[in-house]
């Protein structure tokens, strides 16, 4: 296996862009990544596109607006982990010698309102149970019951997200919010309130990878893909009911959650551990998830997520900054792009280009997404 490095990242801001086609949104991110890498499009040998809702041949339609060079293009639909899956495939293709330069990008123009998820069965839809916040609220309530996590802690996650988002020109919401504003926002699925949830939106992000050796030709600051893992749920997890629409869970078993298993594999692949992380972008579909994933990614022990937050450890100036970009709560979630949006943030952080959001001395970053179908991507980057 060859070392693989990211030589360029690009983004189209996350938000709402009425009248703008997804093709244009995707094009902006890809061109931005090409410029960042200083590489002409004709040198890119393969492309992988993460997308959920734009219909057939989404990546082809975006890339026809960049240049029709005949390269293989694979469209990946892995829900929230689509972009991470695309980057993993691009990384594997370069690592194994299939290609020397590959593009991974994600693009999405989400319909407005609650995601009308197609990953539920018809009876779940007719019973009103086909919305994602239900699953997350059940998880969060379980965590509160089990470990004493509080509603105030949930709101504090959102305070942090919006504070960071206010510093991010690519975020949808760029305004700090008070604890009171969040606690007074409407209840969606108890204990989750509206301002604790991420909103679906539009955006795109891209990364160009090549071999570590080749990377030096393009940049003095290559960021290496130390690990790229993708997992699906084991049978018998606590939250098994929710991950895969329509199937029940087990009350008798307690298999490890998909994020735990996938992160462990990533740490092994990278030869690194949670203690090495200088910045983390994780799947904060809502506030409860952020606290739960602190634990599942090993940033702290089981049940210690609320305390980690209270201590300020996950603030930009904390011991282990999480979602310095503002996370999905402030950026919104353009599903196919969200994972590569995380990668965009981490690359900026590792290069020292994150401006007002810059964390001090980060050498290793982790991107984590998990979504429909129990799709889970964990990527570890290091400079």
């Amino acid at each position, binding site marked *: 296996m060859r070392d693989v490095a990211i030589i360029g990242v690009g983004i189209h801001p996350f938000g709402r862009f009425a009248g703008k086609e997804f093709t244009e949104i995707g094009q902006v991110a890809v061109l931005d990544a090409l410029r960042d890498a200083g590489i002409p499009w004709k040198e890119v040998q393969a492309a992988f596109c993460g997308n959920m809702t734009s219909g057939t041949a989404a990546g082809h339609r975006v890339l026809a607006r960049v240049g029709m060079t005949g390269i293989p293009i694979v469209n990946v639909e892995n829900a929230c982990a689509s972009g991470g899956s695309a980057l993993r495939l691009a990384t594997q293709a370069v690592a194994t010698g299939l290609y020397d330069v590959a593009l991974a990008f994600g693009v999405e123009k989400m319909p407005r*309102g*609650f*995601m*009308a*998820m197609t990953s*539920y*069965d*018809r*009876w*779940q*839809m*007719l*019973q*009103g*149970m*086909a*919305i994602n916040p*239900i*699953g997350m*609220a*059940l*998880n969060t*309530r*379980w965590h509160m*019951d089990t470990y004493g996590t509080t509603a105030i802690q949930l709101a504090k996650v959102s305070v942090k997200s919006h504070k960071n988002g206010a510093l991010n020109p690519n975020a949808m919401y760029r305004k700090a919010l008070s604890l009171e504003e969040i606690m007074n926002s*409407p*209840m*969606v*699925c*108890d*204990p*989750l309130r509206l301002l604790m949830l991420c909103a679906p939106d539009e955006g795109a992000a891209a990364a160009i990878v090549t071999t570590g050796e080749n990377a030096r030709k393009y940049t003095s600051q290559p960021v290496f893909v130390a690990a790229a893992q993708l997992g699906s749920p084991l*049978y*018998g997890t606590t939250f*098994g*009911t*929710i991950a895969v629409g*329509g*199937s*029940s*869970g*087990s*009350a*008798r*078993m307690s298999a490890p959650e998909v994020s735990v298993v996938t992160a462990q594999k990533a740490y092994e692949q990278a030869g690194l551990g949670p203690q090495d992380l200088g910045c983390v972008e994780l799947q904060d579909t809502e506030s409860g998830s952020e606290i739960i994933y602190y634990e599942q990614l090993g940033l702290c022990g089981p049940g210690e997520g609320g305390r980690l937050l209270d201590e300020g450890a996950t603030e930009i100036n904390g011991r282990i900054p999480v979602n310095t970009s503002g996370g999905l709560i402030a950026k919104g979630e353009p599903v196919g792009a969200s994972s590569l949006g995380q990668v965009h943030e981490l690359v900026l952080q590792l290069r020292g280009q994150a401006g007002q959001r810059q964390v001090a001395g980060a050498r290793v970053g982790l991107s984590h997404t998990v979504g429909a179908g129990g799709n889970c991507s964990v990527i570890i980057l290091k400079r």
Partner: protein
Amino acid sequence: MSVVPSRKNQVPVQEGLFSMPAGPGESARLLGSRCKVCGEAFFPAQAMCANCCTETTEPVVLGTRGKLFSYTNVNHAVPGGYKGKIPFGVGTVDLPEGVRVTTRLTEHDTSKLRKGMEVELVLEPLFEDEQGNELVGFAFKPVR
């Protein structure tokens, strides 16, 4: 158990999910499957065991009482064709066969719900479908 009295033609949200009460005083029952090898039970019924990964399941009629594992509610219009009342409760319920079922709850006030409380299966009329039938779903109700 009789569903809330109604003159409309009642239709389950999906065939094969649950049995209607067999007679007066009888309960509706959730219809699942159970693996002959490892004993894991599933709802809705599946042809395969997701644990063993083998075609070893047989039908099983699930118990009507269980324990609440987690709970929430829905306070907002939802996509997917649901036209029934809002708010409503949702929870995960552990049944004696070892299945953890995600289900509606008759109680949406979370202050009246707690982990581990005993709940029992009821049928619940949801809303009228395009054919004028009344759709019937299942829910769990706290046992007083």
